[in-house]
């Protein structure tokens, strides 16, 4: 019964979304307040209905109701409870329902927090959100319905894919979707602005917090996914340039660009048309990502099942929304009044450079991801584009951006002084180079060019501190006054510094882990030892163990340093009984920011085991940096300006006051 209620709620949600797609737009055109007022209420109802539906599916998972086909295919009664919850989105249908839930969640947020928006804008934004909701509701109901029943009901489920039975599944998809789908709000704002044909700095101020929130969650989601792949797959890699990874990375890159261009628009009323275009592109990349992952054109852990009708359906959604938005853009954009102009050497100029590099880098990732698909469709030739391609193109193109990041915040708006910025920053640049050299010397080994990579990481970190140093004017006013001055600054300044610092940490981690990391593959018999990264590992044989829904052989290793045992680690091969599927569970030991990663291979004749051991120095910096970036996002989000939001009528005076505060 509960399942039927969930199903019915989803159908009602479709009806609600249809009404919501049409009436507020008409209301906004006619200036009918009652019709426009429908938008926020309707969005809340929509959210409630989809939540009810999602709750019904979750209930089916928790009580292991195998009469529901979706639950039967992806669950097992012996599965630990947390995986029953997270298993809801560990499959195609459920993950689309989560996608929808988050979409309508954002609509509801706009409805609740959008009180200070002009009525017409709010009505249009919520209507555009409802268009997207309608498309995905249709998609779920017509091609991916999670509420279909089985008759007779099987006694036991087929179990969730073992790779997905992990805490990572509980966290990674919701975070990723909060980011991915969060950009829908920016898209809706852009389309609404195009419909109204009016756009100003206030628009950018409304869009910024949504962009920031989506970006922050997407950062967390990507980092979480990367860490998950790292420890779960047992290959020791943290980024594979897999099309599915790229699918989430491209919206992140475009979203980062949007974050920065919206800043220019908010402060200087420039780059209006570009910002609108970027908002459309960012969500288009999110949709493209959904298409790539969900349509089955790619095979990966993310594409749970392949069904051609689904692929075509999503392709249609993609074409309608992206195509429609671009047509609207081409038609309406010339009507928008172009914004102010500015000198190339200025904060705006630096942000334009940021946008140029980020969009070009996004384009290269897009090319590398789509080229094999397009080539195969056109000529039937099958090629693979792997990590070397992306390192060569994306990696090289991003380098100038990493060099430029610390310059941005120290340049003034309107007319900056590059020479002055250089004068201010050269000490810090020297410091970074020195830190890179020292780091390289201490770690000892690897190509000399890596010094510059390491220095680049330090440059990001030190440059962020330099920004705060000059903001507080510590050199002139002394420490205590400097701190007071810092405290008086708006939080977004700290958000920027923290996020840029985090970027530096990640870059440092990437260069340190790739330069100084080692990989050892050895055959080990019981009692044999091997030295890795200054530690000595002694293999202590295999033990058998039984888990709730799997059996495993666990290899035990004693880890010692300088003859003293410091730790021990278990690494295992599991066999999940329901699916007869083996997995490798890597043993990971953390020493400070570095990790020792032990993965078991095959058993050899004579009782030995092939063991693969990686030494990953400073690898935690990669994800740690992302966490810092995320913290920067939240700090910036907590800025009073964004929280309060500036009502349109007061936009002018508020803006003047804010510029004074800068």
């Amino acid at each position, binding site marked *: 019964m509960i399942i039927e209620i969930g199903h019915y709620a989803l159908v009602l949600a479709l009806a609600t979304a249809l009404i919501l797609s049409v009436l507020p737009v008409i209301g906004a055109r006619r200036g009918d307040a009652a019709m426009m007022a429908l938008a926020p209420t309707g969005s809340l109802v929509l959210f409630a209905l989809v939540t009810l539906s999602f709750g019904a599916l979750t209930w089916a998972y928790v009580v292991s109701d195998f009469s529901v086909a979706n639950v039967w295919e992806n669950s097992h009664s012996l599965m630990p409870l947390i995986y029953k919850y997270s298993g809801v989105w560990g499959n195609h249908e459920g993950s689309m329902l989560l996608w929808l839930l988050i979409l309508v969640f954002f609509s509801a947020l706009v409805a609740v927090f959008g009180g200070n928006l002009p009525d017409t804008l709010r009505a249009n934004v919520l209507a555009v959100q409802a268009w997207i909701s309608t498309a995905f509701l249709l998609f779920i109901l017509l091609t991916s319905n999670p509420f279909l029943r089985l008759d007779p009901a099987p006694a036991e489920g087929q179990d969730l894919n073992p790779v997905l039975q992990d805490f990572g599944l509980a966290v990674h998809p919701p975070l990723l979707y909060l980011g991915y789908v969060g950009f829908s709000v920016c898209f809706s704002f852009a389309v609404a602005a195009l419909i109204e044909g009016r756009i100003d700095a206030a628009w950018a101020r409304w869009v910024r917090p949504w962009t920031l929130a989506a970006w922050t969650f997407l950062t967390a989601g990507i980092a979480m996914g990367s860490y998950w792949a790292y420890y779960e797959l047992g290959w020791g890699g943290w980024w594979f340039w897999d099309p599915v990874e790229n699918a989430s990375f491209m919206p992140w890159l475009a979203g980062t660009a949007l974050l920065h261009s919206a800043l220019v628009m908010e402060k200087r009323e420039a780059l209006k048309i570009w910002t609108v275009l970027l908002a459309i592109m960012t969500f288009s990349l999110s949709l493209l990502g959904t298409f790539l992952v969900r349509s089955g054109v*790619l*095979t990966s852990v993310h594409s749970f099942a392949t069904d051609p009708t689904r692929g075509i359906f999503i392709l249609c959604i993609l074409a309608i929304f992206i195509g429609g938005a671009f047509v609207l853009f081409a038609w309406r954009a010339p009507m928008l009044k172009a914004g102010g102009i500015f000198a190339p050497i200025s904060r705006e100029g630096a942000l334009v450079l940021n946008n140029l590099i980020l969009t070009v880098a996004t384009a290269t990732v897009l090319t*590398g991801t789509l080229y094999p698909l397009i080539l195969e469709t056109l000529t039937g030739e*099958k090629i*693979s584009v792997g990590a070397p391609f992306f390192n060569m193109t994306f990696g090289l193109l991003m380098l100038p951006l990493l060099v430029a990041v610390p310059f941005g915040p120290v340049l003034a708006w309107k007319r900056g002084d590059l020479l002055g910025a250089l004068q201010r920053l050269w000490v810090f640049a020297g410091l970074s180079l020195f830190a890179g050299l020292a780091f390289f010397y201490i770690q000892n080994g690897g190509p000399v060019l890596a010094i510059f990579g390491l220095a680049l990481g330090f440059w990001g970190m030190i440059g962020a501190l330099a920004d705060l140093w000059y903001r507080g004017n510590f050199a002139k006013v002394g420490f205590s006054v400097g701190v007071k001055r810092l405290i008086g600054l708006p939080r977004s300044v700290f958000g920027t510094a923290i996020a840029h610092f985090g970027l530096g940490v990640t870059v440092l981690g990437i260069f340190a882990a790739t330069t100084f990391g080692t990989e050892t593959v050895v055959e080990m018999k019981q009692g044999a030892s091997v030295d890795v990264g200054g530690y000595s590992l002694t293999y202590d044989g295999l033990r058998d163990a039984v888990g709730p829904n799997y059996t495993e052989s666990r290899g035990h290793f004693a880890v010692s340093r300088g003859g003293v045992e410091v730790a021990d680690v278990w690494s295992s091969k599991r066999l999940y009984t329901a699916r007869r599927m083996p997995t*490798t569970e890597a043993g990971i030991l953390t020493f400070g920011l570095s990790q020792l990663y032990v993965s078991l291979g*095959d058993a050899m004749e004579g009782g030995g085991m092939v063991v693969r051991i990686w030494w990953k120095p400073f690898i935690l910096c990669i994800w740690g940096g992302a966490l810092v970036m995320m913290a920067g996002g939240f700090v910036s989000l907590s800025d009073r300006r964004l929280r309060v939001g500036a009502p349109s009528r007061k936009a002018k005076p508020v803006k003047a006051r804010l510029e004074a505060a800068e």
Partner: protein
Amino acid sequence: MTRKQKRLAVIAGGMSFILVAVLLVMFAFSQSVAYFFMPADLAKADIKPGTRIRLGGLVAEGSVKRGQGSTVSFTVTDGTGNVPVTYSGILPDLFREGQGVVTEGAFDAASHGFVADSVLAKHDENYMPKEVADRLKKEGVWEDGKGSKGQANQGQANQGQNTGAKGTATR
């Protein structure tokens, strides 16, 4: 510089960055793209030793031999051709005889064997690499879903269940 010249300089700067990016992408494509082949194609195509390719097919039954340390050799077959492959490293969990596989590497000039430096792993027991599946289906050696279970998988325990219940595994 006048304002017009300044603007031109900025546009030229941006354009040249884009140009560099385009050239870089083209260069990288010419360098690092691996074409996909199956054993039968290799007779027709003339691939020089050292050229990176992807080789896909089924792992021939009874061909997997463990060598020194972590070296493994096996034969990749597609029913018509056979290619001996050596690989040094840990094989993916789901590597089995009779299962589909995609390896990446190059032919060795001396031994004429294929030396793989990566063997594609997948996360699902029903997995057949897409490239391989497309071809084998066309040639009728293998069928979707049913085939992967039937002829390849040692873990037959759940086969009946899969095919029995409205063919979900096939979808």
